């Protein structure tokens, strides 16, 4: 334990990984968020990973109630929230007990000493306090009586002790901000903006924050502080964003780019609800939202809106997709544009609602009866969710098809700095409603046939109600090619099935080639990824390459159809591994399609891969 009295040394680091952990009621998410923001404004690159229990507020002080927030802050480009934290802030015994195993060997622990009293220790399952029994000797530990110090400063400004206690997270934030020489203004400004109207709360939080900061400075307790210089990021205006917000903004952007009003039918579910919340805020963009009675109504209403000429969207998580299958199948048959968003979480069944996983891919591909292919777009970083949403909309609108847009809990809640795109740089999405008849009937009259296709895209016309002369009826029963009338004809069914398949397969020619990185031209191993593993793969591969290994990285943003060059890409490398947060779903698709012996590297622990895990998988597979 450090106890010297010198002016602390300032040590330069190229990156730090900080993990805040405490009871669900302790405000750890907010604390982490603020620390992140201050770092962002300071100019660091960063990446975050919030983790919280499924309960609104699990029993106080228990392991089940621990809420944590990890952030990596860096002076260079990073892609993950980091593997093992350098420092763990533990606000109570349960947090220490539950989170300690993550800490790097010899890492730093800062505990709220006040919380380590008998009741809390018992709740966390400690027989005696770990602060004194030597069990933590391998770590650098700082014991800070945060609760009492916070109460102390709050007394002066007239805040009752009970209320003051709630500000202890700002004490912790102040202390850690000092330790890592973070700027204080962004936090103080934020407190003012957020709690301005509740004067006492604002005052308490400010006082606690300042006290924490001052404690670091004056307590002569810490012998070193750290600094992480701003990252050399591409010039531009940045904002710190999580995946769900980026995705929502992408949907709004898509509406603007396509000049279409937006309709979102959704039913709340973790971790997708925030898309409903975010879109509901922006009705001035011509966004209509319906909190439907269930997921089936949600997708049904979106499909109804699509029939009416809106950009129809539904957003949910795994259990909701399982319910929407039949209606998505109807959308396949009706050939109407529709965006179906799955923010994946741990399954099966209710599973781990607040934890990440990417195990809905095969459901996205096949979770409907009959032959009902749909395109799948997968987002791969928090900020890229913006572009993924636009891409999903582009495909849906151009090909008149439901599109599955996959994200996951990690992308949804994790944040990263995002260099804001120039709005003018975004491509418009050209949408033409049908306005005229397109066929001639037996009697020579001009008529409208809803299933006459564009020869290039194979898309059928989108004739919306209100358009004179184009009245038509469509349904889920097999339709005659062209006319759209009900048809039970065997040959027609084969033809329509082939056409629906060809339409989706043809999209391969309209999407970018496989996204490649690393030793593209000459690698001994290809890491094939999709979705949120991008960050971990990038970091893990960097380590492997730094050791001289030749590794390439292919990342799929489109899973159905695959990019046209994927077969060639796979054939170029002697070995292929596929890290996935499931039991090997993409690898199944790739093996079936290309007969390539792709090895799945799987993880279903509710957490993203660490860079170390990817690194290890590369080494394991490159050797043998």
């Amino acid at each position, binding site marked *: 334990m450090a106890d010297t009295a010198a002016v602390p040394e300032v040590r330069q680091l190229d990156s730090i990984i900080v993990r805040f952990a405490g009871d669900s009621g302790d405000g750890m998410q907010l604390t982490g968020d603020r620390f992140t923001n201050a770092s962002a404004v300071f100019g660091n690159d960063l990446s975050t990973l919030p983790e919280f229990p499924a309960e609104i507020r699990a029993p106080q002080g228990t392991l089940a109630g621990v809420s944590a927030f990890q952030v990596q802050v860096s002076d260079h480009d990073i892609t993950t929230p980091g593997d093992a934290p350098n420092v763990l802030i533990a606000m109570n015994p349960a947090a220490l007990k539950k989170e300690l195993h993550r800490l790097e060997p010899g890492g730093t622990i800062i505990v709220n000493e006040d919380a380590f009293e008998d009741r809390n220790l018992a709740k966390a399952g400690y027989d005696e306090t770990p602060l004194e029994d030597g069990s933590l000797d391998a770590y650098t530990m700082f014991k800070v009586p945060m609760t009492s110090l916070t109460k102390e400063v709050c007394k002066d400004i007239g805040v009752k002790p009970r209320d003051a206690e709630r500000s202890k997270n700002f004490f912790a934030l102040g202390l850690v901000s000092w330790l890592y020489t973070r700027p204080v203004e962004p936090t103080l400004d934020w407190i003012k903006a957020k709690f301005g109207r509740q004067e006492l709360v604002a005052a308490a939080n400010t006082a606690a924050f300042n006290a924490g900061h001052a404690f670091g400075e004056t307590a002569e307790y810490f012998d070193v502080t750290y600094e992480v210089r701003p990252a050399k990021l591409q010039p531009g205006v940045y*904002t710190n964003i999580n995946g769900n917000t980026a995705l929502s903004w992408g949907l*709004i952007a898509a509406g603007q780019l396509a000049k279409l009003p937006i309709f979102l039918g959704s039913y709340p579910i973790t971790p997708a609800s925030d898309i409903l919340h975010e879109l509901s805020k922006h009705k001035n963009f011509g966004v209509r939202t319906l909190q439907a009675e269930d997921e089936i109504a949600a997708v049904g*209403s979106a499909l109804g809106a699509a029939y*009416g000429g809106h950009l129809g969207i539904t957003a949910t998580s795994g259990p909701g997709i399982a319910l929407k299958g039949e209606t998505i199948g109807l959308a396949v048959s009706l050939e109407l544009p529709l965006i179906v968003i799955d923010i994946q979480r741990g399954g099966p069944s209710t599973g781990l609602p607040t934890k990440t996983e990417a195990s809905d891919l095969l459901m996205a591909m096949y979770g409907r009866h009959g032959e009902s292919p749909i395109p799948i777009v997968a987002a791969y970083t928090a900020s890229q969710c913006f572009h993924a949403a636009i891409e999903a909309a582009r495909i849906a609108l151009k090909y008149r098809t439901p599109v599955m847009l996959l994200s996951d809990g990690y992308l949804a809640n994790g944040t990263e700095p995002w260099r804001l795109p120039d709005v003018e740089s975004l491509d418009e999405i050209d949408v033409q409603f049908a306005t005229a008849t397109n066929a001639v009937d037996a009697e020579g009259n001009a008529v409208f046939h809803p299933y006459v296709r564009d020869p290039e895209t194979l898309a059928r016309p989108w004739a919306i*109600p209100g358009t004179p002369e184009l*009245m038509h*009826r469509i349904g889920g029963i097999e339709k005659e090619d062209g006319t759209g009338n009900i048809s039970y004809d065997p040959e027609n069914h084969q033809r329509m099935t082939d056409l629906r398949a060809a339409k989706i397969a043809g999209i391969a020619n309209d999407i970018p080639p496989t996204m490649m990185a690393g030793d593209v031209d000459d690698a001994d191993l290809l890491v094939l990824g999709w979705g949120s593993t991008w960050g971990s793969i990038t970091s893990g591969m960097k380590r492997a390459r730094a050791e001289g290994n030749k590794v390439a990285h292919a990342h799929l943003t489109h899973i159905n159809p695959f990019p046209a060059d994927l077969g060639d890409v796979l054939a170029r490398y002697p070995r292929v591994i596929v890290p996935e947060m499931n039991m090997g779903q993409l690898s199944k698709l790739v093996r079936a399609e290309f007969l390539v012996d792709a090895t799945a590297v799987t993880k279903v622990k509710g957490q993203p891969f660490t860079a170390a895990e990817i690194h290890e998988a590369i080494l394991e597979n490159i050797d043998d």
Partner: protein
Amino acid sequence: MTDIVVPETTKADWTSDQEPRWCPGCGDYSILTALQMMMPDLGLRREDTVFISGIGCAARFPYYMNTYGIHSIHGRSPAIATGLAMARPDLNIFVIGGDGDMLSIGGNHLIHSLRRNVNLTILLFNNQIYGLTKGQYSPTSEIGKITKSTPIGSLDEPFNPVSVALGAEASFVARTHDMDRAHMQEMMRRAFEHQGSSLVEVFQNCNVFNDGAFAAITKKANRDEMLIPLRQGEQIRFGADNEHGVVFGADGRATVVDVADVDESQILVHDESRRDASLAFALSRLSSGPYEPTPVGIFRAVDRPEYAAEASKQLAFAQEQSGPADLRALLHSHQTWEV
């Protein structure tokens, strides 16, 4: 709907080129005819009109209307229609389905669209049977019904669709039957004119799997004694000579009486526009099935804000508050910094 003069139409204009595929003699034909004949009176454009249905014999309806239409999937038509109505409040949307479609698999969507009061004209063809799947009992079948799936008789208390709708806060609920074209047309017209969700239960004969289910009350010879017409502002009376009537006791009970037996002024005067739904509900309980005197007509018709219009108002309000769409401003709306 639009302010511009709408060209006049005829039944033929509303008839599509598809031949109906119902069994000969099915009650669906008379409902279709009634509606096709009524459509010109509504003064609508066909292109502004949409029929949405689920699956079932009844649900084939949209194919026969020369309008826009979706023959969707079983039970989901109210949900699909809700989305369309919200997206396009300018359209005239009819929702069609059978008792299985709307009350069994689709029961939840139905009651939620009723409480929301989305501008939908919902026609529920109640034949007390599953027609398309060849004759299983439905949620409106009487207890003890012997069908393929209930060879010893069904056990389920049937729903009374009018009661269900009233319990679900419906603002417009009516009942009619396939043997009386004029009455059907009046109900459909009133339902259409209602701003909000309107439900019309149509007793419909399935002559193949449940023939004569309503004959005891809808056959010409039985109507006088067995149908209780509800007429706004009029006493609720029926019988060849209007000799029966409905009275309300202080104990909260509605009963059918012979007018001769009571003070005539006690006979209840029907008021479909009463905010309180209890009167309408009590009327819906007068009959426990199509074998007792059964009210037909409009049980309830009250004004409530229409959902899609209110939703549109929120869009206008949001524009007033936050200004018009500005994508750049949105992207910059969180804390930003420059590098």
